[in-house]
């Protein structure tokens, strides 16, 4: 017996002889599993895309009407005698209304449209035109005797009639609108006096009263959000980056820093309303900062954003290869120089990503604003000046949207959706700026 015979012969296994071109069972199973997995991934992405599309379509469909407004546009000439006569009367706006109604009758006749109406119907359709007209001519007496085009916004229900919110079937007469008014509205539309116009006021204006959705605008709260974001950006970015650099590059590894780390991670998971009540207690009740001010909102949101920024900044600092630090230190750079000159620029894209995620969260946050009085506040106009932008009471976009959604008049419903479109556009702008900045930094590699 030689050793060679005791070595077991190669097993008579079919696999060994098989050609590379026929797949064996194991390979087939593996390929099938791979295919299945790819299919799951694709399916997941498609489901996600589907919901995204549904969301986008819903938002646009419900929100677009907020950007148009039904207006009554009418050419109106007021002679000097009529002006003097109306000003001489006791009920001045009433007098103007009569003049206006007369003018409306003539312009309808001119266009050959027949309609019957009384002063009340006009009031129901377009509010009180007398006051608007009087104000205009008192401010611009030079316009007397020349035709002036007035664009009066139609009442919420008339607007709703044009946008399909209000229909004739099942229409119930109320003090707001009667079925007969709809005939007049149709006639006015036929004459081209009532039409849809782009609602600039929605973008530039401030909030209106609870019964006037047509006059509501998101502009003032966009400004409020803008100032809040300024506060958040200029506080949370430097503080967050400084804290991360300290924790990541300088802090000794001990129990204390471990404790801080755990706490920061936990802070990121604290419900935002907790930050709101903290802000109320500390910034308003203790420090006596003004209520409803973007400054306070910004401070509260800074607290909320800091953990997000710190966590992502630390992750991106960690991702910078240690060999870069060694290279700088080996050349005699100080720790600070190695961080500022080499590590930080390399971590910058990651830091920016974290910052934009934090800011986006902060921008959409409503709950903490509820507690510091930014939700209840109805912004009637713009702050005067840059400093006032921080300290004067204002609303913020999500707070404004929340307020509108909570109002009884259905006209505010579309405003809420429209507000969401503006909010998303604001977010998109922020993201684009961040992407441009990130490109800038990435190019340095």
């Amino acid at each position, binding site marked *: 017996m030689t050793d060679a015979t005791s070595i077991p012969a190669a097993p008579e296994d079919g696999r060994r002889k098989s050609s590379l071109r026929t797949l064996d069972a194991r390979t087939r199973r593996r390929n099938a599993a791979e295919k299945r997995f790819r299919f799951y991934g694709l399916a997941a992405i498609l489901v996600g895309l589907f919901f995204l599309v549904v969301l986008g379509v819903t938002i646009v469909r419900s929100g677009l009407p907020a950007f148009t407004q039904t207006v009554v546009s009418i050419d109106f000439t007021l002679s000097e005698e009529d002006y003097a006569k109306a000003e001489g009367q006791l009920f001045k706006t009433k007098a103007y209304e009569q003049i206006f109604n007369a003018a409306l009758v003539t312009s309808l006749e001119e266009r050959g449209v027949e309609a019957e109406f009384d002063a009340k119907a006009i009031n129901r359709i377009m509010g009180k035109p007398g006051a608007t007209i009087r104000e205009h001519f008192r401010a611009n007496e030079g316009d007397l005797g020349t035709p002036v085009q007035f664009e009066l916004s139609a009442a919420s229900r008339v607007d709703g009639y044009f946008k399909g919110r209000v229909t004739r079937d099942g229409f119930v007469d109320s003090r707001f609108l009667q079925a007969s008014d709809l005939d007049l509205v149709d006639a006015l539309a036929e004459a081209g006096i009532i039409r849809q116009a782009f609602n600039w006021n929605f973008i530039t204006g401030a909030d209106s009263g609870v019964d006037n959705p047509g006059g509501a605008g998101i502009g003032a709260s966009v400004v409020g959000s803008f100032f809040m974001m300024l506060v958040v950006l200029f506080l949370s970015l430097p503080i967050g980056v400084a804290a991360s650099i300290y924790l990541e590059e300088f802090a000794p590894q001990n129990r204390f820093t471990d404790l801080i780390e755990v706490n920061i991670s936990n802070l990121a998971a604290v419900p935002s309303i907790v930050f709101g009540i903290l802000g109320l207690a500390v910034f308003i009740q203790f420090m006596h900062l003004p209520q409803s001010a973007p400054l306070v909102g910004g401070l509260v949101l800074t607290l909320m954003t800091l953990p997000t920024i710190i966590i992502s900044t630390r992750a991106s600092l960690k991702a910078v290869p240690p060999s870069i630090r*060694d290279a*700088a230190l*080996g050349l005699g750079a100080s720790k600070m120089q190695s961080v500022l000159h080499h590590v930080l620029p390399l971590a910058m894209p990651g830091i920016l990503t974290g910052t934009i995620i934090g800011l986006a969260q902060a921008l959409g946050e409503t709950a903490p604003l509820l507690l510091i009085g930014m939700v209840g506040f109805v912004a009637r106009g713009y702050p005067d000046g840059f400093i006032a932008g921080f300290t004067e009471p204002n609303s913020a976009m999500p707070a404004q949207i929340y307020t509108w959604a909570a109002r009884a008049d259905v006209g505010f419903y579309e405003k809420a959706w429209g507000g969401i479109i503006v909010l998303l556009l604001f977010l998109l702008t922020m993201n684009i700026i961040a992407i441009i900045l990130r490109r800038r930094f990435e190019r340095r590699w």
Partner: protein
Amino acid sequence: MNDMRVIERDVDVTETKISARGVQVYYADNHAIKDVNVDIEDKTVTAFIGPSGCGKSTFLRCLNRMNDTIDICRVEGEIRLDGEDIYDPAVDPVQLRAKVGMVFQKPNPFPKSIYDNIAYGPRIHGLARNRAELDEIVERSLRRGAIWDEVKDRLDAPGTSLSGGQQQRLCIARAVATEPEVLLMDEPCSALDPIATSQVEELIDELRANYSVVIVTHSMQQAARVSQKTAFFHLGNLVEYGETGKIFTKPEDSRTESYITGRIG
């Protein structure tokens, strides 16, 4: 006869640049360097050889206090540069590292332009007064790093776009640009082809005129070619230290002999 001896002595008697006494290094509980005493001479190339994990890099990193950056690392004993204890509390490691430059095993250029890679050291140490001087330093350093011809037309290209070997020569040029007195090199040629290796070896030989060079290498031939002194490390001990020629021809310790003849390591 007498004249000959005088000349010989001129070559042999050199000043001690770095002297280490009773150096112990611990990584937490791991005793990585055990009681090492060594005198590294000025204007000399000293090679550290030894099997992997024996502590060559660790000891090298003690010489410019790069070990300070490792939290768990503890260094005991005394290391003197020109007679001054570099672990003295009054010594700023940043100042020390400007004098004791380092080239790492893995090329680690900054992700910046080639020019900025070289110019960084001179800039932070204020070695150039104006752009023209800086240009001159950059060119000189790149020439000494034996890479000038390859990069002179693309100084604006990122250092990371070079090949591994080119990157390593860039790193050597970068270390030279700060005009250190001692240059520590941790396996600088492990990523280089034979041509680049011989260029770097030539460079090391040239640097010897002004600096003290310490090089860690796994290549016996390289140690024999470039160094005048050789230190053999084994399991954290400095087993033998002496003239390179003597270490390679008649080592005193049996472990040294086994290593250089390829029986351990």
